[in-house]
C-alpha cells in the first residue's frame, strides 16, 4: 500500500466533505428499498435502520461492528430515544452487510473535521463495484460511531420516524399535529383520549416521505440517552453462545494453516512438502505467491503438518534490515531533510537564534502490533458463482467487496455472515487485507468452506503495525525562562492530521514531517498518530517545565489559557488525584492532557518504583470531556480499556525488526498488562455539553507520558523512548521539590 496513492485519494474526497445533518431525510428511497427487500409479514421500515412490527416490537439495525465498545446498545439508545420507543420493546440487530446500511456519515463527519484521514482512505473504491459513493462503507473506527452515525444518522432516523408516525395519527384521527404527543411507543391524543401503538400506525407511516429536517430532542428531554443501560451483547458473551468469526463451523469445513513470507514483500520460490501430505487429515498444500498453506480437516492437524513443509523465499533488499538500521535511517532523514510543513506559527527559526537558552531532545517509539484477542481468521465458501464468508471485521462491506474481487465475483454474490468481533483496534480495518486475501485464494481451490486462521505468531509477525516514529524537539527560552519556541521534526507518515500539533500557547512553532516509510507495513492502531505524538508532546512539555523551574501542572495551565476544556479536565483530574497533596512515601504523580477524536482527556498516574527497579502504576485518575455521555457505563468501560491498552504499550510494547522480519512471536514476547499490573482507575466524565466526542480511543494516548513524567520525578531519568521495560532505573536520582 503506497502512501502516495492514499494521499491522492484524500485530496479527491475531502472536497465533498461538508458535515451533513439529515441522513434519513437525504435518502428517502432507502426505507422503501428496505421494505421491498427485507421485511416479513406486516412489519415495515419507517426510515433507514428502524423497523416496526404490528405488535409494536421495534427492531433497530446498527451499521457498526460490535467489538466490545457497546456500540449496538448506544446507537440503539439514540434512535429509540428520539423515537420515544419503549426500550423494553426494542430489539437490536446488526445491520446486514449490504449497501442499504452503509454508514458513510462518519466519513463525512471526519471530512468536516480535517479532511478524510488516511486510515479511512480508499474506502471509496473498497466495496465500490456496485455503488461508487463515499457513503458506501460500513466501517467501525476512528471513535466515530456515536458521534457521527449516532448523531447524524440514528438520532435523525428516530426523530424522522416519530414525526411520520405522528403525521399518520393526525391524519387518521383528523386532528392537529400539535395536539398529539408520543410516549413509550404510542401516539396519544390527550383531548380525546385516543391512543395508538406505533405498530398500529406503521403500515401507513411507512408510505410517507421522511421529513427533511426532523427535530431532535434537547438533552433535558432525553428518556433513554444518558442512562447507564445494560448492553445487549453481554449475556451471549458469558455463556459461550456469542459467535465470532473464528467460530464459523460446519461438518464439512476444512482448515488452513499458513506460512507467509517472513520478510515483508518477499515471494515464495520453492516448497518442499516433506511428509506433510502423508499426515492424517491433510487434504492439500496450497502455494500462493507469498505463502504456503496446508489445508486439513482440523486446524491443529494443518498446523502440525505445515511444520514439516520447507520453504524457500525470494531474497529482497530488506533481508538484512533491523530496527537499529531503521532508527539510523530516521535520524539521517531528520538530519538531512527539512521535510514538509505540518504547522508553522510565528518565526521559530529566528526565535531559536535569538533565544537565551535552547534545549533539545530526541524521542522515539517502536512498531506495535494490534494483537486483538481473537486471532485473525476468515472463512470463505465458494459455491460456483456465489460465496459465503465469515470474518470478524471493522468493515463488513469492505470485506465483502474484497472477497468478491479476490474471488472474481460480483459483490452482491458474496454473502457476509455477521459475527461479533474479538477486538479490532485497527487490525480489522480495510487495507489490512492479508488474512482476507489468503483465505479467499485458498478457498477458491475447494468447494467446501475453508477457514484460514493466523496463529498468534502469524498475526504478530504479519500485522500492519503502528509505525515506529522518531521526533526531534527543540525548545527555546528567554532570560526569564518563558518558553518561546516549539520545534518538532518527526518521521511520518501522518495518518491523522493534527496529532503533532500542540494546544499550548507558544508564540513560535515549527512542526514538520519527514519521510518515514520503510518496508514494514503500517496501519491505524488504537488512537493512530496520537499514540506516539501525545507521548512525545506531553513528555517534552514536561521537560520544558522542569527546565524552566516551573511546576509541570502550573506550566500547562498557564499555556492552556485559550483551551478551557483542556484546563478543566486537567484541573479535575489533578484535584481528584490529590495533586500537590501528600502522597505515600516513594510515590509520585505524572500528568498528561490531550485532545483526540473530539474528546479532551487528562490523566494523572500515581507511580512508585518496585524492588526490581521497574515502575508500579498504582492508580490512574482520568477526566474526560466527551461533550456528553450517551451511556455513562460504557464510557467508563471504554476509558479504562483505552488506558490499559496504552499502558501495555508504554510498559512493554515493542515489535522489533531483525533480518527484515519481526522478532516477536507470542504474548510472552509482547507482554500485556494483566490483573496484577492493572492499576486502579478513577474516571471522571465532564459533561461540557459540547459536541459528542469519541470514546474508543481518546483515553489511550495520554497514559504513556503520564507514567514517564512520574518516573522522571522518582528517578531523575527522562524516558524518551518506549517501552519503559527497556530502561535501567537502578541509578535513581529523584527530582526534589516538584
Amino acid at each position, binding site marked *: 500500500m503506497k502512501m502516495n496513492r492514499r494521499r491522492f485519494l484524500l485530496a479527491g474526497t475531502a472536497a465533498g466533505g461538508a458535515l451533513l445533518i439529515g441522513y434519513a431525510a437525504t435518502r428517502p428511497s432507502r426505507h422503501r428499498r428496505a421494505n421491498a427487500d427485507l421485511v416479513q409479514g406486516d412489519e415495515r421500515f419507517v426510515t433507514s435502520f428502524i423497523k416496526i412490527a404490528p405488535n409494536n416490537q421495534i427492531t433497530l439495525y446498527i451499521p457498526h461492528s460490535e*467489538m*466490545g*465498545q*457497546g456500540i449496538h446498545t448506544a446507537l440503539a439508545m439514540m434512535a429509540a430515544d428520539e423515537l420515544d420507543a419503549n426500550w423494553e420493546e426494542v430489539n437490536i440487530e446488526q445491520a446486514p452487510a449490504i449497501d442499504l446500511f452503509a454508514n458513510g456519515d462518519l466519513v463525512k463527519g471526519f471530512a468536516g473535521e480535517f479532511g478524510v484521514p488516511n486510515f479511512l482512505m480508499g474506502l471509496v473504491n473498497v466495496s465500490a463495484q456496485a455503488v461508487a459513493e463515499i457513503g458506501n462503507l460500513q466501517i467501525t473506527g476512528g471513535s466515530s460511531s456515536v458521534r457521527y452515525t449516532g448523531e447524524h444518522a440514528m438520532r435523525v432516523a428516530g426523530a424522522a420516524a416519530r414525526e411520520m408516525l405522528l403525521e399518520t395519527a393526525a391524519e387518521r384521527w383528523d386532528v392537529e399535529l400539535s395536539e398529539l404527543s408520543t410516549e413509550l411507543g404510542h401516539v396519544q391524543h390527550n383531548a380525546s383520549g385516543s391512543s395508538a401503538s406505533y405498530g398500529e400506525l406503521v403500515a401507513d407511516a411507512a408510505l410517507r416521505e421522511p421529513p427533511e429536517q426532523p427535530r431532535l430532542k434537547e438533552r433535558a428531554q432525553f428518556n433513554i440517552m444518558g442512562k447507564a443501560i*445494560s*448492553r445487549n*451483547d*453481554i449475556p*451471549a*458473551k*458469558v*455463556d*459461550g*453462545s*456469542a*459467535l*465470532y468469526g*473464528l*467460530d464459523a*463451523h460446519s*461438518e464439512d469445513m476444512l*482448515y488452513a494453516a499458513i506460512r507467509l513470507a517472513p520478510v515483508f514483500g518477499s515471494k515464495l520460490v520453492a516448497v518442499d512438502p516433506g511428509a506433510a501430505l502423508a499426515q492424517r487429515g491433510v487434504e492439500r498444500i496450497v502455494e500462493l505467491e507469498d505463502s504456503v498453506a496446508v489445508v486439513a*480437516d*482440523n*486446524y*491443529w*492437524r494443518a498446523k502440525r503438518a505445515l511444520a514439516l513443509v520447507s520453504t524457500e523465499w525470494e531474497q529482497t533488499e530488506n533481508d538484512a534490515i533491523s530496527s537499529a538500521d531503521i532508527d539510523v535511517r530516521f535520524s539521517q532523514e531528520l538530519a538531512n531533510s527539512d521535510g514538509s510543513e505540518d504547522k508553522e506559527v510565528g518565526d521559530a527559526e529566528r526565535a531559536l537564534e535569538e533565544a537565551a537558552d535552547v534545549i533539545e531532545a530526541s524521542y522515539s517509539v517502536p512498531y506495535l502490533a494490534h*494483537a*486483538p*484477542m*481473537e*486471532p485473525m481468521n476468515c472463512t470463505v465458501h465458494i459455491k460456483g458463482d456465489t460465496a459465503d464468508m465469515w470474518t470478524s471485521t471493522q468493515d463488513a462491506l469492505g470485506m465483502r467487496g474484497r472477497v468478491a474481487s479476490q474471488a472474481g465475483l460480483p459483490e452482491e454474490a458474496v454473502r457476509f455472515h455477521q459475527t*461479533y*468481533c*474479538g*477486538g*479490532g483496534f485497527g487490525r480489522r480495518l480495510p487495507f489490512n487485507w492479508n488474512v482476507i486475501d489468503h483465505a479467499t485464494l485458498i478457498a477458491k481451490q475447494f468447494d467446501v468452506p475453508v477457514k484460514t*486462521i493466523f*496463529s*498468534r505468531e502469524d498475526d504478530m509477525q504479519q500485522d500492519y503495525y503502528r509505525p515506529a516514529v522518531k521526533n526531534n524537539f527543540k525548545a527555546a527560552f528567554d532570560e526569564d525562562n518563558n518558553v518561546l519556541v516549539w520545534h518538532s521534526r518527526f518521521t511520518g507518515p501522518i495518518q491523522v492530521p493534527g496529532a503533532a500539533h500542540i494546544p499550548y500557547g507558544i508564540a513560535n512553532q515549527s512542526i514538520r514531517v519527514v519521510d518515514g516509510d520503510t518496508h514494514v507495513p503500517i496501519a491505524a492502531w488504537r488512537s493512530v498518530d496520537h499514540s506516539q505524538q501525545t507521548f512525545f508532546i506531553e513528555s517534552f512539555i514536561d521537560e520544558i517545565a522542569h527546565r524552566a523551574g516551573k511546576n509541570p501542572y502550573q506550566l500547562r495551565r498557564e499555556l492552556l489559557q485559550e483551551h478551557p476544556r483542556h484546563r478543566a479536565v486537567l484541573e479535575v483530574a489533578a484535584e481528584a488525584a490529590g495533586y500537590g497533596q501528600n502522597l505515600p512515601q516513594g510515590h509520585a504523580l505524572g500528568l498528561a492532557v490531550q485532545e483526540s477524536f473530539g474528546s479532551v482527556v487528562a490523566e494523572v498516574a500515581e507511580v512508585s518504583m518496585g524492588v526490581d527497579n521497574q515502575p508500579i502504576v498504582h492508580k490512574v485518575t482520568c477526566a474526560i470531556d466527551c461533550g456528553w455521555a450517551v451511556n455513562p*457505563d*460504557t464510557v467508563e*468501560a471504554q476509558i*479504562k*480499556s*483505552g*488506558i*490499559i*491498552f496504552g499502558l501495555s504499550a508504554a510498559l512493554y510494547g515493542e515489535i522489533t525488526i531483525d533480518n527484515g522480519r519481526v522478532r516477536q512471536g*507470542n*504474548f*510472552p514476547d509482547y507482554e*500485556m*498488562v*494483566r*490483573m*496484577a499490573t*492493572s492499576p*486502579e*482507575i478513577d474516571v471522571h466524565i465532564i459533561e461540557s455539553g459540547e459536541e459528542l466526542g469519541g470514546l474508543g480511543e481518546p483515553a489511550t494516548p495520554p497514559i504513556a507520558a503520564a507514567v514517564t513524567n512520574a518516573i522522571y520525578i522518582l528517578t531523575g531519568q527522562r524516558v524518551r523512548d518506549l517501552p519503559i521495560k527497556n530502561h535501567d532505573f537502578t541509578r535513581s536520582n529523584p527530582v526534589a521539590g516538584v
Partner: protein
Amino acid sequence: MATFIVNGVEQSLDVEADMPLLWALRDELGMTGTKFGCGIASCGACTVHVNGNAVRSCVTPVAAVEGQEITTIEGLAQAAAGSNPGPGQGAVQQAWIDHQIPQCGYCQSGMIMAVSSFLASNPNPTDAEIDAGITNVCRCGSYPRVRKAIRALANA
C-alpha cells in the same frame, strides 16, 4: 479413541492422543465457546475445567483427560446448578452481567472459567491472591471490573 465427558455427555473421538483438547472441542465437536488465543498456555482464553480445576486446553492433550469430567463455558451454568440443572446463569456468569464486564468478550469464556474455579478453591481471596490466581489476558482491559466482580462474589 479418546473418551471423556464434556458437560455431562460422554464423547468418544477418533483423534490422535496428542491432539490438544482445545481443537478436539472446537474442530471435532463444534463447541466453539472455548477460545483460541495463543496456543501456548499464555493467555487463558482456552480455559476449561477438568474435574473442576481450571486448565488451559490448548496445551492439554486429549490423552491427559481420558475418562475425565470436562466443563466448558457452555456447561458452566448447569455445573454450577449441580445435579439439578436449571435455566439461567451460574453465579459468576450472573456477576459478569451485573458488572457489565465483557467488552469484545473473546477472552471472557476463559476468564469466567478461570475465576469460577479460582473462587471455588478460594472463596475469599485477597487482592494479592487475585493477582496471582487470575493471569488471563484481556486485551480490552476488563480487569478493573473483573476484580470488582470477584470481590462482590467473595462478599456474597
